[in-house]
């Protein structure tokens, strides 16, 4: 979707300000929402990024990163039926009425245990063992498609209808435009595609600079 999360190339946000000696988390609730999301293994509840992208644009810009996590986890718990609509409404509107259990109830089968949390290993990400043939080869010129899907996509707005070159082929991955919305994995190759900065930003950009973007077969046509 042409959402507020697709920030590449926008103006007006000011300088990048780095905090020195920044802690991993600034507030305790940030630790808790991070750990809650990981313990619930949000990636199993659906596509996390799609959930973040549902946040209204004004709210997205006005809230912090871990508030985005809270928004996404609530949405995913509701959509997966682990919380019902009333519970989510109460969490949003009257969280002070949720009592803290004195004794935690027994942990259900399937919940993430401490020993699993210690070695929360890699997922395979979206990479697939699939014999899908590549549509492009390194060095080949490509043109990105001029598409504006309403659902999830990884083709940033700033790189649509632009000419680039295949730099390398990273292998076969699930296609998020489809897999993130339950449409099947649609296995296909992901390439690093190299763009001249001037192709993306015009003559004001440095002639020496390049932007590399990871793109799926379905975003590309031969140039």
């Amino acid at each position, binding site marked *: 979707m042409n959402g507020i999360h697709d920030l590449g190339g*926008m103006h007006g946000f000011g300088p990048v300000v780095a905090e020195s000696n920044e802690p991993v988390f600034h507030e305790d609730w940030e630790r808790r929402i991070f750990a809650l999301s990981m313990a619930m293994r949000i990636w199993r509840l659906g596509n996390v990024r799609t959930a973040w992208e549902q946040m209204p644009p004004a709210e997205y810009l006005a809230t912090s990163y871990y508030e985005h996590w*809270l928004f996404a986890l609530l949405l995913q718990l509701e959509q997966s039926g682990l919380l019902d609509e009333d519970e989510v409404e109460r969490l949003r509107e009257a969280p002070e009425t949720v009592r803290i259990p004195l004794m935690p109830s027994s942990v*259900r089968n399937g919940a993430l245990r401490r020993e699993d*949390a210690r070695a929360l290993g890699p997922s395979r990400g979206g990479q697939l063992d699939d014999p899908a043939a590549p549509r492009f080869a390194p060095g080949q010129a490509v043109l990105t498609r001029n598409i504006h899907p309403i659902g999830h996509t990884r083709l940033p707005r700033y790189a649509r209808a632009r000419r680039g070159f295949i730099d390398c082929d990273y292998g076969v991955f699930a296609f998020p435009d489809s897999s993130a919305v339950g449409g099947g994995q649609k296995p296909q190759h992901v390439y690093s595609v190299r763009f001249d900065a001037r192709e993306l930003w015009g003559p004001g950009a440095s002639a020496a600079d*390049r932007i590399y973007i*990871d793109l799926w077969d379905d975003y590309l046509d031969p140039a």
Partner: protein
Amino acid sequence: MSGHDDHHGHATDDPSHPHNAPLSDVQLRVRALESLLVEKGLIDPAALDELIDQYETKVGPRNGAQVVARAWADPDFKSRLLQNATDTLAELGLIGRQGENMVVLENTPTIHNMVVCTLCSCYPWPLLGLPPVWYKSAPYRSRAVIDPRGVLRDFGVNLPEEVEVRVWDSTADLRYLVLPMRPDGSEGMSQEELAALVTRDAMIGTGVVKVPEAAQ
């Protein structure tokens, strides 16, 4: 950062918020959500403490710095790292969530690499830990692709015009680590001493590694 041993479930234990201070809306919501999930048996509170400990104390940019220092000291390791980062890092146990498919990018006198995620906040967790606020912020995500040299100046890095800046937008499942240039004046340093020089920003590509003048 201390404090990973003092939270046993509830935001009221946060030492930065005295017990008599009212909780903010977001604190209340997160605490209530945790209570509800614990009550339903969907969460093992011990797993939460373990996860926080992992990401607050075990995973962080020191892991990446060790890799960079070894690459500087060991040409064979460096060549394997650049050829096949995922397998080479997995041999060191440096694999985990958000580091499943790794690519290492080498900075040279003529090429400077810099990593961003314009759509989100993708970052190589096993090597650098969780990303700093600026990396996830609108200023960085918006400007890194359109004005990389301006962003670098925000970080005090001024590159000559003839150096090629390569910006890597992590739009897919690949995660990128920059191998910065080994600094002048570091000859004869041990791998440990080299690792101590390597900053998180240098491995994102918004910094360069320097030897402190006192050490030269």
